[in-house]
């Protein structure tokens, strides 16, 4: 079943409720140029900011001379890290405190928003020029004179522990040594295993490259004392919390953060960055709104990067081909500072996923999180889970080859069975539900696994080497519950808010604390509410991204919006219906418990008397015929704190053809069968899968962030950093299996990251199958493949 065919059939089914592939409501404004992004915000009297950025990977700032710059035309202020420190602004915090294996806290080096004594990566801001025009600001930035004393940079994470300390007090550049699982039992099981497969892996560093670069516009109203910050954030409330509680730019109730339309984030816009901090601080300081929009070069340098692991792994297998132990040791490059969630990505979002879909009884993982003189590394689509999947699925495939067992059969033999849920893994997670065999078998059917030898032979006749690769991934979405996460070091809760305001005319405004930057919340959430209330999709407006309008929220990351944010809306809808029943019972002159709500009408079963949703809403606001003691109005909210993670899982199978003459890899077929639980809008889900696959295949074949030995970013533009384009990708075959999540009201699991999580291992397993050697690191560029073939 191809994607287009499935969408057509589901659209053809009609309706706009749960399960319908409704066209996205927001797309009309996006494709007609009516979207309103941060850079579209222009405030009266607005000035422009240009940041002063370090040209060196590591250097002491000896002196900054701003006199010439300040004298230049249009210049309003030249502010440095020293000015910011003198104003008492605090450091940017890391939001997840990881405990080391010896019980000590991780070592978080201070991260001033603007550096004032030392710069630690190329592109790190140490000052900002504010001028009347962007041109003036740029010219003046050129005139700032800085004396740097260069210091030897630490660039290679593998050698970071034996290099000079970047931060005073961080010995061996080690932020933490973290472990999970039973080391002794794992080592003992490996020692007696019939076969041990060993693998060395590099998870290549990636640069996110959202289509819209980061931007911020800050304004300060001296009359009310209110600060307003428009910024490209995935989580405006968290931004406000960090800027007020930790950095101290403004009190929380005097700071409004608005994240309007945002053009892609992939995680990179979760974090609180120096630039928006400086913009809102400077706006008050200079008494004018201040605007900054990143140039693409700045995005390359100063957006948080992703991945960057070096791993050694060992998988023990018994004589029957059953996994007995997995031992993993990873060095994770955290960059020059711990970004907001940088510490959690290679630990709680990585180590906990190493059981994969399998019953491996003994697992131990040790992670060395190291500082280097490179941009901070944090969550990027998948965040830890792609890295975990890459380890598990590459080593399982390698074991299958070494043992001469069919890779599908080896996986089948080790998968957790549907009757074993809830399943407690040896690495902390408890999977609530799943059916891994179902997605594997469906994927095998869709790829026509039985026909592969013939396809391989046909390719060989054309002079090409064809390979097939599997990836049976699992991920954990909707990080939860709050109490557990906070006990493990999270600095914030992990619930979500949802509010439904039913207007007197029966139309509905939904407020969500999640944020849409491409995911289609305005459609999906409207579908949920329209479906529950039996009203039209156009009668539902979804509001997000404004701390001045939405009560609270934790934003969008980790594929949480639907499973957590959607669930909050669902609970709020329950409350609306419950109150509506009280009103309807009174109006229908009956007792409350007898009223049922279905198809948009309140009524008693067996009675032909009923009231529409709109009639009840109107009565709530014009309470003439109304229950005594019941508050007027029909507006309800819910904070939903999930009981557990959700566990989307599935099977990806890639087929590639390699031209041995050139090393060029073509992805000729790609099947993704995912179990996302209940799906609200299949079209949007397929779009999310496609986007994720493009990014995962980009990681496997094209993308790699490179710093040279001096810490200079060598892949600082699209010329040297290769993003996937349409002609790099095949026509995907996408399907879903459904085992609903057991613990949220929607049964939804989350779909935003799965494509990027599962696909890199599938592609690399296919490429290495095609070329007959495992000695190949991502990205599998033609040169590397050609060289691997020549070895």
């Amino acid at each position, binding site marked *: 079943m191809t994607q287009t065919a499935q969408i057509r059939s589901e659209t053809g089914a009609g309706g706009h409720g749960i399960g319908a592939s409704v066209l996205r409501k927001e797309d009309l404004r996006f494709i007609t140029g009516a979207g309103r992004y941060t850079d579209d915000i222009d405030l009266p009297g607005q000035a422009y900011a240009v940041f002063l950025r370090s040209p060196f990977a590591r250097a002491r700032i000896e002196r900054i001379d701003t006199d010439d710059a300040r004298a230049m035309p249009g210049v309003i202020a030249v502010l440095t890290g020293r000015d910011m420190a003198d104003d008492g602004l605090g450091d940017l915090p890391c939001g997840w405190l990881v405990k080391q294996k010896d019980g000590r806290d991780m070592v978080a080096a201070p991260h001033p928003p603007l550096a004032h004594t030392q710069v630690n990566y*190329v592109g790190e801001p140490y000052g900002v020029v504010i001028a009347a025009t962007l041109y003036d600001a740029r010219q003046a930035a050129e005139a700032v004179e800085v004396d740097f004393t260069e210091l030897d940079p630490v660039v290679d994470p593998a050698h970071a522990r034996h290099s000079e300390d970047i931060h005073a007090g961080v010995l061996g550049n080690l932020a933490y040594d973290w472990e999970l699982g039973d080391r002794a039992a794992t080592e003992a099981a490996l020692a007696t295993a019939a076969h041990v497969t060993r693998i060395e892996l590099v998870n290549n560093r990636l640069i996110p490259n959202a289509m819209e670069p980061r931007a911020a516009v800050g304004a300060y109203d001296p009359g009310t004392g209110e600060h307003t910050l428009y910024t490209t954030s995935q989580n405006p409330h968290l931004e406000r919390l960090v800027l007020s509680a930790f950095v101290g730019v403004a009190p929380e109730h005097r700071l409004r953060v608005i994240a309007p339309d945002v053009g892609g984030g992939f995680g990179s816009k979760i974090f609180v960055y120096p630039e928006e901090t400086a913009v809102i601080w400077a706006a008050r300081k200079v008494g004018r709104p201040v605007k900054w929009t990143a140039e693409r070069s700045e995005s390359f340098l100063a957006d948080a990067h992703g991945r960057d692991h070096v791993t050694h792994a060992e998988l023990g297998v018994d004589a029957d081909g059953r996994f007995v132990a997995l031992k993993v040791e990873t060095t994770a490059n955290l960059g020059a500072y711990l970004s907001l969630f940088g510490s959690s990505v290679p630990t709680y979002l990585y180590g906990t996923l190493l059981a994969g879909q399998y019953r491996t009884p003994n697992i131990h993982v040790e992670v060395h999180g190291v500082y280097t003189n490179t941009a901070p590394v944090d969550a990027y689509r998948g965040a830890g889970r792609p890295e975990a999947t890459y380890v598990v699925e590459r080593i399982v495939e390698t074991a299958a080859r070494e043992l001469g067992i069919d890779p599908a059969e080896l996986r089948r033999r080790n998968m957790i069975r549907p009757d074993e849920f809830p399943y407690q893994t040896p690495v902390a997670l408890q999977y609530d539900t799943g059916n891994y065999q179902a997605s594997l078998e469906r994927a095998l059917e869709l790829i026509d696994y039985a026909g592969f030898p013939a396809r391989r032979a046909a390719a060989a006749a054309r002079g090409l080497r064809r390979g097939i690769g599997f990836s049976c991934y699992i991920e954990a979405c909707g990080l939860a519950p709050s109490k557990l996460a906070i006990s493990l070091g999270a600095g914030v809760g992990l619930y979500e808010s949802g509010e439904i305001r039913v207007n007197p005319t029966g139309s509905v405004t939904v407020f969500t604390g999640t944020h849409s930057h491409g995911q289609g919340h305005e459609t999906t959430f409207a579908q949920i509410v329209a479906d529950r209330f039996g009203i039209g999709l156009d009668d539902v407006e979804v509001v997000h991204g404004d701390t001045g309008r939405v009560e609270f929220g934790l934003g969008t990351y980790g594929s949480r919006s639907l499973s957590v944010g959607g669930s909050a809306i669902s609970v709020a809808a329950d409350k609306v219906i419950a109150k509506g029943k009280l009103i309807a019972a009174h109006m229908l002159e009956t007792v409350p418990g007898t009223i049922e709500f279905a198809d948009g009408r309140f009524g008693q079963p067996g009675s032909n008397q009923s009231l529409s949703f709109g009639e009840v809403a109107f009565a709530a606001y014009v309470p003439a015929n109304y229950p005594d003691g019941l508050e007027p109005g029909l507006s309800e909210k819910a904070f939903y704190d999930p009981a557990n993670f959700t566990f989307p899982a599935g099977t990806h199978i890639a087929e590639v053809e390699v031209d041995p003459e050139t090393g060029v890899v073509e992805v000729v077929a790609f099947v993704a069968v995912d179990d996302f639980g209940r799906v609200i809008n299949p079209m949007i889900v397929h779009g999310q899968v496609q986007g994720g696959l493009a990014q995962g295949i980009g990681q496997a074949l094209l993308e790699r962030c490179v710093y040279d030995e001096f810490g200079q970013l060598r892949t600082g533009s699209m010329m040297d950093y290769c993003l996937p384009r349409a002609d790099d990708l095949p026509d995907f075959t996408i399907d879903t299996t459904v085992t609903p999540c057991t613990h949220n009201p929607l049964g939804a699991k989350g779909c935003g990251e799965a494509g990027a999580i599962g696909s890199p291992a599938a592609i690399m397993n296919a490429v290495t199958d095609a070329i007959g050697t495992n000695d190949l690191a991502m990205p599998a560029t033609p040169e590397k493949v050609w060289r691997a073939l020549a070895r």
Partner: protein
Amino acid sequence: MEQTGEYRIAASRERVWTALNDPVVLGRCIEGCQSLERVADDRFDAAIKARVGPVSALFNAELTLADVDAPSAYTLHAQVKGGAAGFARGQARVELEDAGPETLLRYAVQANVGGKLAQVGSRLIDAAARKLADDFFAAFGRELGGVVSAAAAPVPSPAPGAAAPPRVYEPSAQWKIWLAVFIALVVALVLAL
């Protein structure tokens, strides 16, 4: 980047030498060289205005002489700052040799670039530096009324350890040839933006 090059100049070594010591000639060959000032026996400051399309930037270079083996070999160390355009630093070893009626010039340059030069220009630098060095020697050849031809194949870098022991610097105008060569390469790097 690392690059080596070899030029055969169709003129006697004496003629080459004289021309290279003529500041007027050099000025014509190094485009955009706004000033060249000797601030110490072994140190020179240069300002080079480089323009690429609509973008123009002033690059300040500090050049230091070392391992002088007058009149046959020389090493120049350079630090070049181009503000927002980035920076370059490196060294060039240049050697002159009689080749019958002609003169053979060999250079080996090693440079590291940073800032925008590294971020957006690294892919272009090798080819651009080669082209601009060629341009410099082509202009130089025209000054001599002769022909300059790039050697057919790149030559291997000379082993740095093999350099002659440093000699006392003799104040003369001879540094200019080395400076000219290096500036050409620096300009090449900078223009590679």
